[in-house]
């Protein structure tokens, strides 16, 4: 039952292995800029080729297996990635409304969160594009995206906020009825209702057609 390899590694762990050094403070912005630039340039291939190409010049013993593996992966990955890109590259997206998201009057955090939301229509479906900056880092908690009505009584969860991308509005849910975009901080407590801790909020300038 005891994994001997694992135990051997555990026994070999030195103090050095536990030391953690923070990277330079500006490293994240360099990474973000590089990733953004590549996204803007429309790069579609995954980086497995990079690993593979370099692996060829590095005389590792596993070279042949690695190259084969990388080749297969590249094909699979290119196929997997091609579909969403093909959809998003079509210029059939209409922006219906946009609003800044602000932390004003909400829970306070070390760095003030900000963001923006756009309601877009694509191929007859409505989506919310949400971007949040200065996301609070609370271990164990996650962010959740909500649409709320102007009385702040009715609300609909659009699910966990997992990054700056597009979230589908559930069928029958309209931004006219629920114009307030809210991103909340949720503990992983299994309680499906809003935690009451909002990170950012903003109101989409849409008129209530049903009123």
């Amino acid at each position: 039952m005891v994994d001997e390899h694992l135990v051997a590694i555990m026994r070999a762990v030195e103090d050095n292995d536990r030391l953690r050094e923070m990277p330079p403070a500006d490293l994240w912005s360099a990474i973000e800029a590089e990733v953004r630039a590549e996204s803007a340039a429309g790069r579609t291939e995954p980086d497995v080729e990079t690993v593979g190409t370099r692996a060829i010049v590095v005389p590792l013993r596993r070279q042949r297996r690695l190259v084969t593996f990388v080749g297969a992966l590249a094909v699979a990955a290119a196929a997997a990635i091609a579909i969403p890109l093909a959809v998003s590259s079509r210029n059939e997206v209409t922006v219906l409304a946009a609003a800044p998201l602000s932390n004003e009057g909400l829970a306070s955090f070390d760095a003030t969160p900000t963001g923006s939301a756009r309601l877009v229509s694509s191929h007859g479906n409505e989506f919310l594009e949400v971007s949040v900056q200065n996301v609070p880092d609370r271990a164990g908690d996650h962010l959740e995206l909500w649409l709320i009505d102007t009385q702040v009584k009715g609300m609909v969860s659009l699910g966990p906020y997992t990054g700056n991308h597009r979230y589908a509005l559930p069928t029958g849910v309209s931004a006219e009825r629920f114009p307030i975009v809210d991103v909340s901080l949720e503990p992983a407590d299994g309680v499906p209702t809003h935690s009451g801790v909002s990170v950012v909020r903003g109101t989409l300038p849409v008129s209530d057609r049903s009123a």
Partner: protein
Amino acid sequence: MVASTRGFGGEADDADAKVDDVDRRIDIAFAAGGDGVLKDAYERYSSLVFSFCRRSLTADLAADATQETFVSAWRSRSTYDDTKGSVAGWLVGIARFKIIEQLRKAGRDSGVVEVAAQRPDHLQDGRLEQVADRMLVAEALNQLPDRVRSVVEMAFLEDLTHAEIAERCSLPLGTVKSDVRRGVERMRRHLESRSGVNHGS
């Protein structure tokens, strides 16, 4: 740290559930894709990746290797499978390639040889792999709540039986067993995805 109160157990369970949740959340989110996931992964694991790079490289080269690791991870995100192991292990696996590249580059640029031991690549690689394994195991242990970590260490480093640990810590036997299982699972997830990058399985 021997705990003798029963109440201690419940708190550690909660704490562990939260930690598990964060790491699993990053793994699952990364597999699903999106811009924000890279930042989450960076915030959680950049110190691990950078520290791993620092074991072989100067601070400047380690920063370069760390940057390349995360950019490469983002480009290759569709190849990451959260069922095969953790993002932490996967990143360290990518970082290993980036370190080797930096060492080779530094070796080529005559004059700039402020890098660590210049050894033949296969030896360097073997050493890197061992460092990676140890750092990932240390990372996994560090992520565990104190009680779970102590139980795991007593089981594997002190060779105590589960019954002995239960008695020493005044914990139910079932708790000791589940702590050990959790700790082993965490370490395995880190190591499995690390080796997945190399072996291609």
